[in-house]
């Protein structure tokens, strides 16, 4: 299988889906001739024309609402937020209109919103956020956070297929840093299904997005301690794979959730709450979270290093968990 970067996997999927299905179109700022702020859509306007790769004004509300309308008329719109952070400007259209319309009116809203998210490159408070937790509280949305090129492709394909609004969080820090084998032909990865990145017996580490790669490093480090960590790559936040998480924790009896988003009311809370309620008898240690602290994402590298969970932090947290 060919090796692709995370970004190439997304770009390939967009192209394949546009070739396959005339209803698919892209809309966003600077995604046409410029190819998007991260060049994910490079060359697509040339290939498909300016009515299938639409340069939108600086209008997140018009973009999201426009996708909703186009979807109602039978299209399969894919919006790009220039940075995930700017989705706050389309918040109302997503939570008030798109998320509730099928339940209220029976009309599906098959839209995909692509959200380049995450920190690690001094992007500061408004170019680094992981806004998935706020949306996780909104019934009617689906949220996916792929960590690997192959999952990026499979989940994006599923998102486009899905008759519901899907927020596709693509981690900017992975775009060009992560490579992996990706099947050339079309395939889907079901939304709502976690992936066991590595099996283990001593503790379960649940994570998603860029943190998955830190989790792997941390688990590697723990091997030296003689500990085997099971890593669950959640992949989807809404719906999330409760069964996979519960099965893993039932086996290991220990849980650490790691996320890049901030702590309070972050999605880690939902996982801990569920595990605590469902597996009360099975836990050998208190379930724990390792997350960013409760503040905006800082710009200065000295602060951002402190803000973002680091491999060492994961190692320490796992050791503490195992030592309990």
């Amino acid at each position: 299988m060919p090796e692709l970067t995370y970004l190439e996997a997304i770009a390939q999927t967009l192209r394949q889906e546009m070739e396959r299905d005339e209803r698919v179109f892209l809309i966003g700022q600077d995604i046409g001739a410029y190819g998007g702020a991260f060049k994910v859509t490079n060359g697509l306007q040339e290939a498909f024309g300016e009515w299938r790769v639409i340069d939108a004004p600086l209008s997140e509300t018009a973009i999201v609402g426009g996708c909703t309308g186009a979807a109602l008329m039978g299209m399969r719109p894919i919006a790009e937020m220039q940075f995930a952070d700017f989705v706050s400007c389309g918040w109302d259209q997503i939570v008030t209109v798109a998320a509730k319309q099928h339940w209220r009116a029976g009309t599906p809203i098959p839209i995909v919103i692509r959200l380049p998210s995450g920190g690690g490159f001094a992007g500061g408070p408004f170019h680094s956020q992981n806004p998935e937790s706020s949306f996780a509280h909104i019934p009617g949305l689906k949220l996916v956070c792929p960590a690997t090129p192959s999952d990026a492709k499979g989940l994006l394909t599923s998102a486009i297929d899905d008759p519901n609004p899907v927020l596709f969080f693509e981690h900017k820090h992975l775009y060009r840093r992560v490579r992996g084998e990706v099947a050339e032909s079309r395939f889907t990865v079901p939304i709502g299904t976690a992936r066991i990145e590595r099996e283990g017996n001593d503790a379960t580490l649940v994570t998603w997005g860029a943190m998955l790669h830190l989790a792997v490093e941390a688990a590697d480090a723990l091997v030296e301690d003689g500990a085997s960590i099971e890593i669950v790559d959640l992949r989807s936040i809404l719906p999330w794979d409760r069964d996979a998480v519960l099965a893993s924790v039932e086996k290991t009896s220990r849980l650490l959730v790691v996320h890049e988003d901030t702590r309070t009311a972050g999605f880690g809370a939902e996982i801990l709450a569920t595990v605590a309620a469902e597996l009360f008898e099975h836990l050998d240690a208190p379930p724990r979270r390792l997350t960013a602290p409760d503040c905006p994402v800082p710009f200065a590298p000295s602060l951002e290093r402190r803000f973002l969970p680091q491999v060492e932090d994961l190692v320490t947290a796992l050791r503490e968990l195992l030592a309990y």
Partner: protein
Amino acid sequence: MEAATELGLDRIDLVGMYRNMLLSRSVEERGRTLFKQGKIPGSFYTGLGNEAAAAAVGTAMGPDDVGAVIHRNTGVHLARGTEPWKILAQFMGREDAPSRGRDGNVHFAEFDLGLITMVSHLPAMLPVATGCALAFRIRQEPRVAIGWFGDGSSARGDAHEAMNFAGTRQLPVVFVCNNNQYAYSTPTRLEYAVDHLAARALAYGFDGVVVDGTDLLAVYREARDAIEKAREGGGPTLIESVTLRLEGHGIHDDASYVPRELFEEYEDRDPIERFHRWLVEHAAFTDDEQRTIESEIKELLSEAVKRAEASPEPAPETLLDGVYAPHDVFETPHFS
């Protein structure tokens, strides 16, 4: 009749629109009664004073055109074919209502008839209407989307983004402002600082027109022109239809903040009476015809009440159905 013939309307069309207005008001009046009888939960809103504008625009739409309706638009639903009993069932929150009791009062539309259900957040459906037009433009279909909004909701960012985007791409969308001079208790001078909202269109690169919303044929003319222009690639139009909301914002509101003189000014501009006079004068509309329509509507409505009341309250165990559309939703023949 000449004015009407010129518009491509024959007598049947005209009487049809008149009937639409009468029916619209009757449905709402019946709703009011049901509300007072405690049969309608929540709150209650009508489009009193907006009957002509609703009937005219609803009728001017082509069969494949779509509209994102708002409150005050009962006549649009009727023009597209929604049956009165469904509207009453909607008000009552019943299982067979368009929103199946999930949402209430004016938050409904029959998608199969080309209408899109509003959300409360005004005017959040304008970007959606623009998006419908975008789909038509992408596919090069000769279809037009209508997006309604109020004078008050013109102040929100959604109105701006929808119109500006539609302007840049000259999309086939017609924005219709039901300017009834108030947003709840707020008069237009506190909502915007220009004489006419139609002026906004100039800032977005398309035409704006002001029309007397109590004059059915005038609204019809503007709507038809704008829709045909959009259909032919001429881009958006903003139609500002000026009326007066003839009662409070909702049933709980006595509208005591509206100056009495304003109500008086609109007394002989009741859109229904006004068009009745026109029909009598120009189309030899008879008292007999009037009586026939009235009794027909009366019967229709007592049937409607019965049918709405016969519809069950939604079963509690259905609450979570449809939070997510199932994967095969598009393969089922009817998904609304």
